[in-house]
């Protein structure tokens, strides 16, 4: 197993994510699905923009805080060619819109709601995610 095993910070971070999703749910009655919230800004509808901008602004503000005070939160030695990374981004963008959600909407929110759609989604993206990581790392040498 990896020497980078960090179960406690992972649990704490996860609990914060769960708390954030619960604030959205019980406060505003909305699902905290990030691909849906952000995707809605790319096809904006009148009266449905401000809360999305605020949520994304909150995400970015957290990022700014980390840049200033905890830059190690972004530390990564993953090496992928830019074109491969761009293609990966396209797949994530297109796939989450086609499949109505990502790790937050289907993962955190959907599983907590016991949604069969979300369970099917999570099982699928975990399987293809693992397959893609294994193939890219070992068969393509990091592509």
């Amino acid at each position: 197993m990896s020497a980078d095993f960090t179960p406690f910070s992972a649990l704490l971070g996860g609990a914060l994510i769960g708390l954030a999703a619960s604030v959205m749910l019980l406060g505003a009655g909305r699902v905290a699905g990030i691909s849906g919230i952000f995707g809605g800004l790319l096809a904006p509808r009148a009266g449905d923009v401000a809360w999305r901008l605020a949520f994304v602004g909150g995400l970015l503000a957290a990022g700014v805080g980390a840049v200033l005070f905890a830059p190690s939160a972004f530390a990564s030695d993953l090496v992928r060619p830019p074109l491969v990374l761009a293609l990966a981004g396209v797949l994530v963008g297109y796939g989450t819109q086609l499949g109505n959600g990502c790790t937050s909407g289907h993962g955190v929110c959907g599983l907590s709601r016991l949604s069969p759609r979300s369970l099917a989604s999570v099982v699928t993206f975990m399987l293809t995610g693992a397959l893609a990581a294994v193939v890219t790392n070992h068969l393509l040498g990091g592509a």
Partner: protein
Amino acid sequence: MKNTLLSGLAGLLFGAGLLVAGMTRPDKVVAFLDVSGDWDPSLAFVMIGAIAVHFVAYRFVPKLGSPFLGGRFALPTRRDVDARLLLGAALFGIGWGIGGYCPGPALVSVVNGTSDALVFFGGLVAGMLAFNVTERAAAPAE
């Protein structure tokens, strides 16, 4: 206004959680997904922590009847599993396994300004826009 403030707070908390959890480190994400290598199971604990909290929150939805700030609960009601759902999830997983970013961490990491984060984010936006275009093309004329 209250809804906007609350959404901003939720986004801030969500982003902090992603950062604390290690989700903004693509190498760690890929080490979690690559079960064949030097496996790092940490990120499974992110989902356990998040669901442990959020599952409890959902138990209060029927009791409350409406959200604290008024209005109605706008929650997904579909339960059918169709080809679009599975194909979308499959494509998302492939991109996630290659690049190590899912949408939340991709957004949080943009402000770090590394070329990797920016290139991935550019692809993410392009993919979402491409979806909007293909959907519009496939939709019957109004």
